[in-house]
């Protein structure tokens, strides 16, 4: 994989990719499938229920129907892939230094934010419902310590508990050494006094 677009620091590596659960895209896929099949059902019903003479007229223009239907399928296919692209490119990268939040809101609307681990105050996971529990997806919210800064939220994340654990691990790795240093330095000054 090529991560050059993320502009990682020399020592920085990616620990985890957090993506939305595939069930989110399945919803779009089912909708597209229904949209693709609906004209076929309508066509069949039309042939069954209209008088035979009218049905014969419709059948005689089979290629015209096929042409219109293939354009309809092409439209559905393109829309499906636009949705897949929006779904797939919406991702969080948890690196050794920070969380990179890439929010793909539309084909021409993309937001990239960085969140350093030392600014994280809390990570909340919300799994609600039978389906979410069974398929292990939920909402992940990272609250920041700074004032006037937004919370970072990703809905319908796959395995949110695992992501939360990794974020806490990285957070502790980043925070603890500095705390120890502060503690040591304060001990040192106390000793000097």
């Amino acid at each position, binding site marked *: 994989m090529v991560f050059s677009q993320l502009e990682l620091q020399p020592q920085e590596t990616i620990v985890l990719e957090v993506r939305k659960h595939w069930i989110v895209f399945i919803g779009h896929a089912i909708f597209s499938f229904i949209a693709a099949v609906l004209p076929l059902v309508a066509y069949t019903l039309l042939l069954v229920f209209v008088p035979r003479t009218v049905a014969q007229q419709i059948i005689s223009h089979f290629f015209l129907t*096929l042409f219109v239907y293939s*354009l309809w399928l*092409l439209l559905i296919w393109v829309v499906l892939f636009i949705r897949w692209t929006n779904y797939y490119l919406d991702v969080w990268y948890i690196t050794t230094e920070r969380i990179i939040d890439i929010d793909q809101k539309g084909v021409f609307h993309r937001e990239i934010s960085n969140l350093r681990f030392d600014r994280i105050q809390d990570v909340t996971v919300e799994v609600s419902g039978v389906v979410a529990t069974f398929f292990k997806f939920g909402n992940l919210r990272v609250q920041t310590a700074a004032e006037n800064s937004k919370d970072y939220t990703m809905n319908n994340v796959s395995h949110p508990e695992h992501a939360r654990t990794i974020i806490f691990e990285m957070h502790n790795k980043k925070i603890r050494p500095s705390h120890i240093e502060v503690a040591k330095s304060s001990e040192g000054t106390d000793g000097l006094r």
Partner: protein
Amino acid sequence: MTSMLLATTTAVRSAFGHSWSGVLNTADLSLKNILWAIFTVVFIVYVITTLVLLFHWRQYGMGTKRIVAAKIIYFFVSIIIIAVALFSLFFI
């Protein structure tokens, strides 16, 4: 419902003096031109959208296997659909 359809069919026939296929046959040349124009517009939109998608996949896809698989599936199915559209257009 059936009687309404029959009534409509009869009305159209009487209005044009011949059957539906006859109506379409007399306008075949213009109909085909319109269909070619529609196909051209749809194809141009398809090409532009595909270029936008390719840009996103290349720029932000990080070269993952899923992106490569998506490209293959997208183009494979698209080519089949466009071929069917063209095929049907020649036989109209």
